[in-house]
């Protein structure tokens, strides 16, 4: 049975279109997954608690957003923080108990370089309100993140503060 040439061409074009669609949307899915992951991190970060048990559980939950070998570089004047254990330990000790605070992530740009590696730039807004006098302070900083997909979840492997004003 002879297959018409037009049919062969149509099938080939359809397969090519399917491959192109898969290639274009694959990156988009990862971008969406990363944005969702970062949004979930901010929500978990902002879910406050002041009792001892809650703090430990919260630290464990927040730790799941980072790789074991995460490196945090805040720039000149501050030594790097290496490893998830160190990061969570420092974060737990520094958690203020006399202030309400809120973390927002804005201007998030995601670049998925490979199947399991991505670069993210974003601005963090940290709003802190003192319980004592109600004063509110706002700190905004730009960060560059290196993300890695581990066990199907995107995790932060590197955090680098970007110095806008040097």
């Amino acid at each position: 049975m002879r297959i018409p040439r037009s049919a062969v061409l149509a099938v080939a074009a359809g397969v090519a279109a399917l491959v192109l669609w898969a290639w274009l949307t694959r990156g988009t899915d990862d971008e969406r997954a990363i944005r969702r992951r970062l949004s979930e991190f901010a929500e978990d970060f902002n879910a406050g608690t002041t009792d001892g048990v809650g703090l430990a559980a919260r630290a464990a939950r927040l730790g799941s957003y980072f790789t074991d070998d995460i490196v945090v570089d805040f720039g000149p004047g501050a030594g790097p923080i290496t490893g998830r254990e160190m990061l969570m330990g420092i974060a737990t000790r520094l958690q203020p108990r006399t202030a309400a605070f809120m973390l927002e992530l804005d201007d998030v740009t995601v670049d998925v370089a490979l199947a399991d590696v991505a670069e993210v730039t974003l601005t963090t807004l940290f709003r802190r309100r003192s319980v004592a006098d109600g004063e509110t302070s706002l700190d905004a900083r730009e960060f560059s993140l290196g993300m890695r997909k581990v066990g199907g979840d995107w995790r932060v492997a590197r955090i680098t503060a970007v110095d806008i004003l040097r």
Partner: protein
Amino acid sequence: MMPTYESGSLRLVNKLSFWGGRRPGRGDIVAIKLAGPHVLYVKRIVGLPGERVAIAGGMVQVNGMPLVEPYVHVRKPWDYDEVTLSPREYFVIGDNRGAASRGDFGRVDASRIVGKLLF
């Protein structure tokens, strides 16, 4: 940028201020972008490309000469070692010198300046 502008107040930035070869000038209050267009620093330009800028006793010095700044009402007596600005750098600082800390002032690349505040 207090007392010139209150924190959280709504301002208008003219993104066309520095098009067509126009460049920021000393005294201009400019918006500086971070990772994107939604969050901006608001600072005043006190140093221009190629100039030497230092802070001595809270006073800004440009090329060794103290800068007259009538918009500054409160100062802290702090010092900042002299830096020479590259051809693409401006030195910016907020007007609230009484509360200035590292990160509130410094050299910024021209590419980060998005426009001049209109009001």
